[in-house]
């Protein structure tokens, strides 16, 4: 049965356009939206809060989005398999076998297709978020609100933050972990291939919903969405709530899938101490995702209930508390920033040995560092609330726990630095991005010392200082390593080389203008400009203009990357070698791009992939295995 369908010729294009695909999904999404919208009218009650001059209420908005998302997923075919199973058909991974470019626009269970879907999908929203940053810096050119109306400006700030924090959460796990983890552990697929596809399409639906927030008045809350401001805001905030809840759902499922895959699907011989450090990073991130994201969904649901059916979780008049939102949000929110940072650590430690031509130094210490950060990140969240008046007597504890987290982070630094030590360092583009990580994360970490110290935090809290700090850690930590991963693995994923010279231009411009953009913001913050404000004292205009011009140049640097990507992958199409970096990692022992089933025979591991300078590479091909044992 499967063999026959494998060999079957691809049906003509018109036939493939009818059925469960992206177009159907869009149509059913719109249908579902209206079903939800009008459905809400049927069950609505007079006690619901209607908008002043319209006949719709908040319930319609939520049901419309839920209906729209469900319709979109049904249109993609996510119900086909459960229904088929209910009707008695045997399990299959049929969706995997579809060929051609249309599989990138449909439900596909090939982890490599999902990885590439993520790369372009996340990239699209990263680009939108980046454009918002350009608009923010345009407004910041002058000390008064001049370019955008105030509501629009706050919406742009919120869209930038929410898009980046929501979408880039999966920025490395989405494209790279989905693509690489099964290969690295010697598996042919993820544990739950349909859930893997679901996480991607949920994220795309979420991104579309957030982007359209501007048509509903936007939202004035920034990415944190603090209640009670959330409760009183425009309908645009509903897009924010739905977006983040869907992202939370996607994160939870992605995390579950990663954990299950790494725990259960490792090839023979791949013991815990032979696992590539990237997989360890993914695992520790996935644990954070599974435990943190449900809290986000819960707190946003409470916000949605406050807005729709008039509960008072966050309204003190009804016995609620504005602290409740802040507390729950940061229970999610602080692990969230490590969800962003940890994959970056892992990528640096994964790539350094290849270009230092040395084994990863202190493997167990590096793993301990990743797991230590992952564990400690649960005990620090109230440092976001040092001046809020919540638990004033617990501040010394949170100060200590926050500073403790620099110990496991320091282990990552130590392992990385000692890996470089006495190596034969090759300054390729991915290596340059990894080396930049050391610099950026060092600045980010050292500025974090000021924020973790309560007396100093009193001034820096909520100022541009904290904003500069987390851009150094997240953009300097995540985005730089994201690009390292792109330059390192995209040739493997697509089979085409990226232009090295353009890559170096991209790196140097990005590194210089990134620092030129965010370093002055430390000073601006110390000098008293509060976050999310386009209005500042005129003595700060020179620094702000400097930052804005640097930010525009940083934007141009991103265009260099985009040009490189499109030029190399769509026009030049120079075939990539199987192992352009002389890596000993298993994915580089496979052809580029990796074939659909990854391996002809399941490999058998006898060492970790870091044995540079330790003689010839041990064979991954099982010897003497009986036929059919794989």
């Amino acid at each position, binding site marked *: 049965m499967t063999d026959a369908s494998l060999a079957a010729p691809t049906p003509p294009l018109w036939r493939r356009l009818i059925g469960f695909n992206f177009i159907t999904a869009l149509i059913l999404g719109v249908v579902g939206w209206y079903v939800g919208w009008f459905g809400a009218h049927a069950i609505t009650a007079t006690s619901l809060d209607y908008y002043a001059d319209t006949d719709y209420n908040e319930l319609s908005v939520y049901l419309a989005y839920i209906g729209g998302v469900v319709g979109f997923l049904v249109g993609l075919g996510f119900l086909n398999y459960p229904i088929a199973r209910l009707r008695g058909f045997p399990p299959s991974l049929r969706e995997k076998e579809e060929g051609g470019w249309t599989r990138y626009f449909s439900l596909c269970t090939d982890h490599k297709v999902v990885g590439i879907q993520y790369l372009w999908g996340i990239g699209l929203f990263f680009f939108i978020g980046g454009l918002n940053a350009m608009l923010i810096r345009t407004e910041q050119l002058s000390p008064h609100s001049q370019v955008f109306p105030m509501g629009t400006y706050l919406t742009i700030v919120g869209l930038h933050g929410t898009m980046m924090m929501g979408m880039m959460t999966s920025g490395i796990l989405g494209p790279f972990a989905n693509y690489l983890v099964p290969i690295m552990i010697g598996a042919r697929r993820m544990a739950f291939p349909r859930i893997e596809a679901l996480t991607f399409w949920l994220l795309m639906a979420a991104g579309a919903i957030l982007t359209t927030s501007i048509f509903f008045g936007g939202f004035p809350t920034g990415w944190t969405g603090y209640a009670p401001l959330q409760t009183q805001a425009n309908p645009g905030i509903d897009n924010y709530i739905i977006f983040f809840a869907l992202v939370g759902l996607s994160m939870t499922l992605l995390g579950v899938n990663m954990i299950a895959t790494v725990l259960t699907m490792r090839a023979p011989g791949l013991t815990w101490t032979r696992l590539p450090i990237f997989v360890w990073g993914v695992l520790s991130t996935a644990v954070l995702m599974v435990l943190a994201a449900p809290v986000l969904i819960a707190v946003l649901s409470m916000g949605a209930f406050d807005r729709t059916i008039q509960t008072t979780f966050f309204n003190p008049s009804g016995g609620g508390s504005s602290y409740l939102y802040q507390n729950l949000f940061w229970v999610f929110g602080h692990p969230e920033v490590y969800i962003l940072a940890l994959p970056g650590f892992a990528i640096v430690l994964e790539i350094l040995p290849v270009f230092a031509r040395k084994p990863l130094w202190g493997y167990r210490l590096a793993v301990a560092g990743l797991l230590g950060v992952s564990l400690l990140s649960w005990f620090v969240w109230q440092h976001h609330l040092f001046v809020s*008046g919540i638990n004033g007597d617990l*501040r010394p504890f949170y100060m200590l726990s926050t*500073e403790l987290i620099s110990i496991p982070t320091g282990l990552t630094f130590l392992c990385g630095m000692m890996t470089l030590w006495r190596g034969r*360092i090759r300054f390729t583009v991915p290596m340059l991005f990894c080396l930049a990580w050391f610099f950026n994360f*060092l600045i980010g970490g050292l500025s974090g*010392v000021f924020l973790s*110290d309560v007396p100093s935090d009193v001034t820096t809290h909520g100022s541009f200082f904290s904003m500069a700090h987390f851009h150094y850690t997240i953009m300097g930590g995540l985005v730089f390593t994201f690009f390292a991963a792109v330059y390192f693995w995209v040739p493997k994923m697509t089979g085409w080389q990226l232009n090295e010279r353009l890559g170096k231009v991209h790196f140097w411009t990005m590194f210089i203008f990134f620092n030129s953009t965010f370093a002055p913001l430390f000073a601006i913050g110390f000098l008293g400009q509060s*976050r999310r404000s386009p209005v500042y004292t005129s003595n700060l205009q020179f620094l702000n203009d400097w930052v804005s011009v640097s930010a525009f140049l940083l934007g141009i640097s991103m265009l260099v990357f985009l040009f490189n990507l499109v030029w190399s992958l769509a026009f030049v199409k120079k075939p990539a070698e199987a192992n352009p970096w002389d890596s000993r990692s298993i994915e580089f022992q496979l052809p580029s791009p990796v074939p659909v089933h990854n391996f002809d025979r399941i490999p058998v591991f006898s060492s970790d992939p870091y044995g540079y300078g330790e003689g010839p590479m041990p064979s991954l091909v099982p010897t003497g295995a009986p036929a059919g044992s794989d």
Partner: protein
Amino acid sequence: MASEPAAAPPATEPTNDGVRVVVAWLVLSAIATPLVAIYVGPLIPPGNGSVQAQGQTFSNQVMTSLITPVLCLMVVFFAYGLVKFHAKQREAALDGPPLRNDSRIQILWIVITSTMVLFLAGFGTYELLKDGAGGGQGPNPVALPANHKAAYPIQVIGQQWQFTYRYPRLGGMESNQLMLPENTLVVFHVTSLDAIHSFWAYELGVKADANPGVDNVAYVETKGPMTVHVRCAELCGLWHPYMFDNGYVVPHATFTHWAAHAAALYQSIKGYVNRPTSKGGAPFAYTYLPEPTRRAG
């Protein structure tokens, strides 16, 4: 030294690279740290506008001095390492020595970072508990300055989008301008009528979130006369960016004079106290419950 012959030493042969880096680091740190401590640290805001602000500046000074050796280590390590261990073109196929571990370095590193962290936490806790460091501590403050019972109370009421200052010792007089007597320990009671605001008196080194239904207490001891920039530091809605004003620390005589005038001046716009409940007034309290009505949409 970067242009040394490319003849790679055997993998296990000890080199003096480590000694060079450590010596260079110690020398650089010994020069840089005092310079940073003396010349850079005191420049870091918020300055000397109040006792608490001075404490923050001292904290910043100590921490800046402490991170200088860390920065020096990184600079020396990467400057030396990236130049010295740069792969030469003709030996590009060679691998480095397979060094996988050194427990002495691991233990040394963990001991040093742990010591720094524990010192920072201890120092921060001491500075915090000494006088509250100007931060909001909630309704039951624990970090109390000496003589805190005699502190001059001022209530700060945040609403969209302005701060109102109320002086209980002046009969609950309300003002839209912050006036503080010089050389006085002041206790701010910060609360909000709607969304979350944050009262940030920059030069005083005071920041305290204004939550509806919560009395957030912050202590500050003023010094000489000065202008204070007050702004909201928590995004609170549409006109948040314009939620700022100037406050003044003035001599006692000026303060008394202002209080007498202001009582008359603000009589007509008296906000909440002494206004009938039916007209939105409320008796004096440290917190108020916000109206549950929605403002926008």
